[in-house]
């Protein structure tokens, strides 16, 4: 370890420790009814105003995905990695109205999770169970992506040992995270999100202003990127990428952006961030203000090209022996910034990975507790027992994600998130469409989920690795030629690529509509709807606030 790395490590550890202390202290912040109730632990009492929500949801949505995975994809593949910008721009207009309806109906009926809503809307534990399981499973690779980002930072600092020892720093970081999430619930990541954002904004503003000037301006940076991406990969015989979209990846770009935007607010952790806010106005203001992070995300994506111009080589992962593209941005910072500033930057990325990991594990724990434990295992559980279950479940989910990252090493960590997206998109008809209409029948939704999920996972299975051209689960982009309906290839031998999530979602919707038409014709009962039309527009008047919160438990 060099002298510079010692400085970086000390600054990283000091900031990390400060944040951990903050996490434990958060238990007492804005505390009302005590942390032994699920509403208090898992939604912080639904009391967050505009500012806290902005930091919380910002910390929730702009994660290691933004700081590590997207720039790594731009570094490796060029323009297609920039899909993350249209994704986060079209996101807010698309979800603006549905999210308000979800907040209102959840507030009226005390729903904590999206599966709670589905259960209330359709009176079906089965459909709620499917939505809950999908949420938990889809969240795990997303948490694993955060861990991959954190590990990339730790390895760049010099903690890059081989084998089991190489993962040890990650384990330590996650035990600390697990402990303060356990004791403080959602308040911990909300409070830490303030620190994270201040650090991130400081680092990014310096990086996006200083680095392009330092490396000769955008013209020469893009020239360097374009030259490197045009080099042919000896294994596949194709260029690795380009700075503009090609004929084969335009559809992929659009479907990735649209699919990711539709998926995001189906993830349980996004719903948690929304439900923790105290009124519709808070959400509306945030939908206007949150794109400030999108500008940041776009600028960070371009740092992938800056890394090319700077001649950065990905660090060789001490555990796998392979080059780890996730280390691109940390390596760029370590290479160009003085050691003290690089230390701050690393801490910012590391903390930026911990905040969403905490919220995600809380959201998955809420799902387990409300829609599996209480629905099937112990219907008579008290509020206190629910909260204890959720705390334990949050530990289990985090442990699962750690094992995920130790066991699996995809070439681009962004694929972890995109695979999760394919899964979570299959709950769109049950969660999002049912916010507006109950026309789709309960059994249509179940059948659509089964087909969408089955086909989606199968299509992911047949995608080979883009770097070697062999293997399975190599990404989320499928050539249209591989699409087959019972042996019929509707797109011939087309090499145009598409995001698997959208293909599976369309199949899901078609099956849901057809089955709905059939079961309606034979008059199968569709379950009881406990929500009323006016629930979807309800806002929170002050005097009923406490009452609503307590009935939610």
């Amino acid at each position, binding site marked *: 370890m060099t002298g510079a790395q010692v400085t970086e490590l000390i600054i990283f550890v000091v900031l990390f420790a400060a944040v951990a202390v903050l996490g434990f202290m958060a238990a007492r912040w804005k505390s009302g009814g005590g942390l032994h109730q699920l509403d208090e632990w898992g939604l912080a009492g639904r009391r967050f105003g505009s500012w806290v929500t902005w930091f919380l949801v910002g910390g929730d949505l702009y994660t290691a995905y933004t700081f590590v995975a997207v720039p790594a994809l731009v570094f490796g593949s060029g323009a297609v990695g920039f899909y993350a910008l249209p994704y986060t721009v079209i996101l807010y*207009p*698309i979800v603006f*109205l549905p999210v308000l309806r979800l907040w209102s109906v959840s507030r009226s009926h005390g729903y904590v999770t999206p599966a709670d809503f589905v259960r209330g809307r359709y009176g079906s534990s089965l459909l709620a169970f499917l939505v809950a399981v999908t949420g938990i499973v889809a969240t795990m690779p997303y948490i694993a992506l955060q861990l991959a980002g954190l590990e990339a930072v730790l390895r760049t600092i010099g903690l890059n040992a081989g084998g089991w020892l190489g993962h040890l720093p990650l384990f330590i970081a996650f035990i600390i995270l697990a402990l303060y999430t356990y004791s403080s619930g959602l308040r911990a990541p909300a409070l830490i999100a303030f620190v994270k954002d201040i650090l991130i904004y400081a680092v990014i503003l310096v990086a996006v202003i200083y680095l392009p000037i330092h490396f000769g*301006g955008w013209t020469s940076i893009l020239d360097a990127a374009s030259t490197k991406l045009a080099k042919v990969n000896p294994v596949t015989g194709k260029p690795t990428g380009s700075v503009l979209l090609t004929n084969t990846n335009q559809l992929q*770009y659009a479907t990735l952006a649209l699919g990711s935007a539709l998926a995001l607010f189906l993830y349980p952790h996004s719903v948690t961030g929304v439900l923790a806010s105290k009124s519709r106005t808070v959400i509306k203001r945030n939908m206007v203000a949150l794109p400030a992070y*999108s500008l940041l995300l776009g600028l960070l994506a371009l740092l992938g090209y800056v890394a090319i111009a700077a001649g950065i080589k990905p660090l060789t992962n001490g555990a796998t022996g392979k080059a780890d593209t996730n280390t691109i941005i940390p390596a760029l910072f370590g290479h160009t910034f003085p050691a003290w500033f690089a230390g701050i930057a690393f801490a910012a990325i590391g903390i930026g990975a911990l905040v969403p990991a905490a919220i995600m594990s809380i959201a998955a724990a809420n799902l387990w507790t409300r829609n599996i434990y209480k629905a099937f295992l112990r219907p008579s559980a008290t509020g206190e027992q629910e909260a204890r279950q959720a705390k334990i479940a949050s530990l289990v989910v985090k442990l699962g994600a750690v094992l995920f990252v130790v066991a699996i090493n995809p070439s681009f960590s962004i694929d972890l998130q995109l695979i999760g997206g394919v899964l979570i998109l299959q709950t769109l008809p049950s969660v999002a469409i049912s916010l507006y209409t109950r026309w789709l029948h309960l059994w249509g939704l179940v059948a659509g989920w089964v087909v969408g999920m089955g086909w989606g996972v199968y299509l992911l299975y047949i995608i080979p690795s883009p770097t070697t051209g062999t293997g399975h689960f190599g990404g989320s982009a499928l050539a249209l030629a591989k699409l087959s309906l019972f042996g019929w290839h509707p797109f011939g031998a087309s090499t145009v690529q598409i995001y698997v999530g959208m293909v599976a979602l369309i199949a899901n919707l078609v099956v849901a509509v057809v089955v709905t038409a059939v079961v309606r014709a034979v008059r199968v009962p569709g379950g009881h709807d406990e929500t009323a039309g006016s629930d979807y*527009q309800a806002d929170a008047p*002050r005097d009923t606030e406490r009452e609503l919160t307590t009935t939610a438990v």
Partner: protein
Amino acid sequence: MPPTPPTSSPSTPPADPGGGRRVTGAVLSPWNLLLLLPLVMLVTPWFNHTDPKLIGLPFFYWFQFACVLLGVACVWIVYATTRRKPVNTVSADRLDVDDLDERGRA
């Protein structure tokens, strides 16, 4: 997800905080159509070009940065035009809930 007609049910409380207007929330406003505008970003052939460049960045990149502002403008206009619409609350107060909270603490 397209906006659909508002669901107004018989259980809507008769108390009308809006003073004579129906409780509709934000659902019916024609301004909501603005939310579809940012979807132009999905039509990649329209901006997948190098020229014109801006400070060395190809059109492909700076056009999409400009779309961030377009997206904010669209959502802000919808927020601003639907802000004064009555919402269904149990109390008859029409003040912003944030203001109410501040007063409640004072």
